């Protein structure tokens, strides 16, 4: 590390910091999927079908995630990206 880098480093987060933040999100998502109950994929599919009755969407526009906060409480998070109005 040179003298210049010492000053530069202060300004913006390093790429390693960015990498870590991205990984934390990806890994949390992956773990959410694999800890999900067996009915989860079917339920997700049905939710998509219901939305499709009203709006035309692709399945990758829907993210359904189950977050287990503790033993008593889990949160079902549903995110739908709707197409722009024509």
């Amino acid at each position, binding site marked *: *590390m040179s003298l210049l880098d010492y000053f530069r480093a202060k300004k913006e987060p*390093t*790429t*390693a*910091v960015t*990498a870590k933040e991205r990984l*934390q999100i990806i*890994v949390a998502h992956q773990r959410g999927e*694999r800890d999900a109950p067996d009915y989860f994929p079917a339920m997700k599919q049905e939710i998509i079908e219901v939305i499709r009755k009203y709006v035309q969407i692709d399945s990758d526009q829907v993210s359904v995630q189950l977050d287990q906060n503790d033993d008593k409480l889990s949160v079902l998070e549903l995110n739908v990206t709707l197409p722009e109005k024509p």
Partner: protein
Amino acid sequence: MAQIIVVTSGKGGVGKTTSSAAIATGLALKGHKTVVVDFDIGLRNLDLIMGCERRVVYDFVNVINGEANLNQALIKDKRTSNLFVLPASQTRDKDALTKEGVGRVLEELKQEFEYIVCDSPAGIETGAMMALYYADTAIVTTNPEVSSVRDSDRILGMLQSKSKRAEEGLEPVKELLLLTRYSPTRVATGEMLSVADVEEILAIPLLGVIPESQAVLKASNSGVPVIIDQESDAGKAYSDAVARLTGESIEMRFVTEEKKGFLKRIFGS
């Protein structure tokens, strides 16, 4: 009781074969009767790293198919006593491995050996699944880099759901992190994930940190597992990892930047 250890990663080229060869050799050097098994069917490489490629006659698939018995296929290491190699087939594909066949061969190896080290192929398909299915311990080989860490996490998911131990509700496979190709200098400049970062994300115990090292290429060029080169940083780091694997507690080395002179630090190198 024999222990089955899988060296696995998901991502390719992170150092599984290098690590399998080093760790198996290290265990044998400590006096444990050890066999290292190449599960990379069709892309045999372990024999080269172990330096026994010219002595391969029969392979793992031959044994599974009953075309040869174990003693015909096992290659005794010339350098290290207590060490044997079971090479992969060069001509078949991964479907030649069946759960039943692999189980039968591993069961037979368990009668003979204290440690059975399984060098997994990359990916999450049949070959990798077969390598991890019977494992007692998994050495999750990871580079400090985003795709490798993500794939390691996927492999952890497999170990927790698809292994024999998971399927049968036994005690879970023991998961250990081996961080390879680590460059303390690049960590210091913020270009590379640190040991602590990767530990925090994967949340499994750390078996060892192997530095990025020129000794690894030198070792593979000459077909000598890098752990034999005890002058080298990588060789020493693998020895430490083996010691930890057998229950010793040893401080991590090669995780911080070597001290540079004052001028070098100010003006860069």
